[in-house]
């Protein structure tokens, strides 16, 4: 079913960017952790979900303040990430098949986190109200959007900029790429590898939590929240280039826009579109659009 379009409408654009912004917040942490540890963190989606639940809890159950919920979600999830890293990822670094062992451990955590959340909050979906200051609608060329949706786009841009500055400033990129390619040599040059890894895991998890918390008012919060999103995040990270922060941004916006425009072109096949894009990118440029370029 093809509807006639004047290419991309403003509303598609706004929707696509907001979709992309949320995806970026998830994908960037995933990409960061992959870039350093070489591990695709399957639990990343589950961490994102915890972020959403923490925001929910602070907004509706504990103190009725969304912003505190966002901070708590991000930091709380960061701390959980640290516990996971120190307890179960770190002991595996010296394994022969470390990557896969770590991947499987994170897979185990998906199950565990899922059940713990279900135990605490049950399976029913919750919705988190948007903060009062942003609880109004904006009309853009005939389509209505919530102000909060636009805020999330801004938030993603701010996060992107902050990360960019951080990485530039701290020589973090080289540190991370060097360490991930040869951990032993890095430690012989004075890199405290465990601390670096834990730090990165904190940052990655922090971003997942932040993404989850910021997304909470846009969608329902339920234990299955992270499952679908993690696959989207994988796609984005691949399209953008594993380990590339800028790539994650471009990839997320790309997938977001495609998901926004897709339904008007093809009645079904929304699962297929991003995957097809991923196959194409992999075949044409395996390292992703921005992979291998350095940061």
């Amino acid at each position: 079913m093809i509807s006639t379009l004047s290419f991309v409408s403003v509303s598609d654009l706004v929707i696509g960017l907001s979709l992309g912004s949320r995806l970026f917040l998830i994908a960037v942490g995933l990409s960061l952790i992959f870039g350093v540890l070489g591990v695709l963190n399957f639990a990343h989606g589950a961490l994102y979900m915890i972020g959403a639940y923490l925001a929910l809890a602070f907004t509706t159950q504990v103190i009725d303040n969304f912003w505190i919920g966002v901070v708590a979600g991000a930091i709380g999830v960061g701390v959980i990430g640290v516990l996971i890293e120190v307890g179960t990822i770190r002991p595996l670094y010296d394994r022969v098949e470390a990557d896969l062992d770590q991947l499987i451990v994170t897979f185990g955590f998906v199950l565990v986190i899922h059940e713990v959340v279900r135990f605490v909050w049950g399976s029913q979906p919750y919705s988190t109200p948007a903060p009062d200051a942003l609880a109004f609608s904006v009309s853009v060329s005939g389509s209505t959007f919530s102000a909060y949706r636009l805020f999330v786009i801004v938030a993603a841009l701010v996060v992107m900029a902050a990360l960019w500055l951080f990485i530039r400033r701290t020589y973090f990129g080289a540190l991370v790429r060097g360490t991930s390619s040869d951990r032993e040599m890095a430690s012989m040059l004075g890199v405290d590898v465990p601390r670096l890894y834990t730090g990165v895991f904190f940052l990655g998890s922090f971003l997942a939590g932040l993404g989850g918390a910021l997304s909470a008012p846009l969608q329902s919060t339920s234990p299955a929240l992270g499952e679908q999103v993690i696959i989207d995040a994988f796609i984005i990270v691949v399209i953008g280039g594993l380990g590339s922060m800028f790539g994650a941004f471009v990839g997320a916006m790309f997938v977001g826009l495609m998901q926004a425009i897709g339904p008007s072109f093809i009645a079904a096949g929304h699962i297929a579109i991003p995957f097809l894009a991923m196959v194409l990118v992999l075949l044409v440029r395996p390292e992703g659009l921005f992979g291998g370029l350095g940061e």
Partner: protein
Amino acid sequence: MSTHDDSVTSRIGEFTRDAVRNGWTRERCVVLLSLGLLLFGVVAPSFQIYLFTEFLIIALFALAFNLLYGYTGLLSFGHAMFLAGGSYGLAIFLQESEPYVSNVVGAGPAPLVSWVLGAVFAVSLVIAMAVPIGWLSVRLEEIYFALITLAFGMLVYSVIIQNPQGLTAGSDGINVLLGVTEIGGAEFRLGDRQIYYYLTLGIVGASTYGIWRIVNSPFGTICKSIRESPERAAALGVDVRFHRWMTFIVSAAFVGIAGVLIAGLSNVASPYHAHWSESATAVVATVIGGATYFAGPIIGAFVYLYARWGISRYPALEAHWEFFMGVLIILVVLYFKVGAAGGLYMLRTWLLDVQAAYRRGGANAAVGFVRESATNKLRRDSDASESDTGGVER
């Protein structure tokens, strides 16, 4: 069997005594194991036969997956697409052509003949899928290979869900019922619990032997060399991409066989079989079993399936089974460096050492050995870094 019962039992006794006396040779283990497996179909409770059949199928799935991962170094995260290919191949064939088969060979043998033809069709279908998908995928390596196979897997999944030409019945899946076969007055149901067990045992056994031969053949040696260093292999004259492609196809074909079997066992070809989480089953089973051992995936499949079953028997655990499975997976990965198979292997070596100590100096020596090795182990565990790679029987 009944008439030779005595001699069989006495021979089993002989074997056991021999085995204890002379240690376990591979041949003897295999013979004993086969006997055990054959007996299992007769003596085990019906549900256990079901579960064991499922285990055999998952073991084949993981084993075929590991041909690509453990031996060639390519981690596929979409191998479930071939499982689905096998089960849908059979299901669609049975659905579309059972009446024709019945016309040709008569109603009696039709179910069996259809099944055989369906299985052949299904595996051909899987190969037909694997040829182009493999050709594209082996262009990539490492994580990129994992991701492109994941993508292909999910594409297959979404195709199945979309119900093209009404062939796949969308998300409902297709029921697969193996009817009653009648040949020369004898009647049997292929789907009968025991018959299906022996059928699966035969096919999985033959496939396992086939895979074992493959990994120990020149072809398998080349696979291993590619895993270790593709550039070097190429410099010696190995067409690396082509070889990976062939391995991909062979691996897929065996997964296809597992797909045919799983459809017959659970009586359904469902889109679930193509989902990435099903691919993850093979990965998880292989990792917890130990990818570096031939038997690793088999042991991993066993642990995975029986742990799940064990949990389901306790309502308190079943209510939160994901939690316990998750914890189990984490613990196995953390505490078994080279998987459960590696653990078993070390246990075996250790037992043989104990036995040797016993033979040398009687019970005291054996106890002494046990004590010493325990303290040694503790000491070694406290060493900061130790690069014990394990991996004996790649």
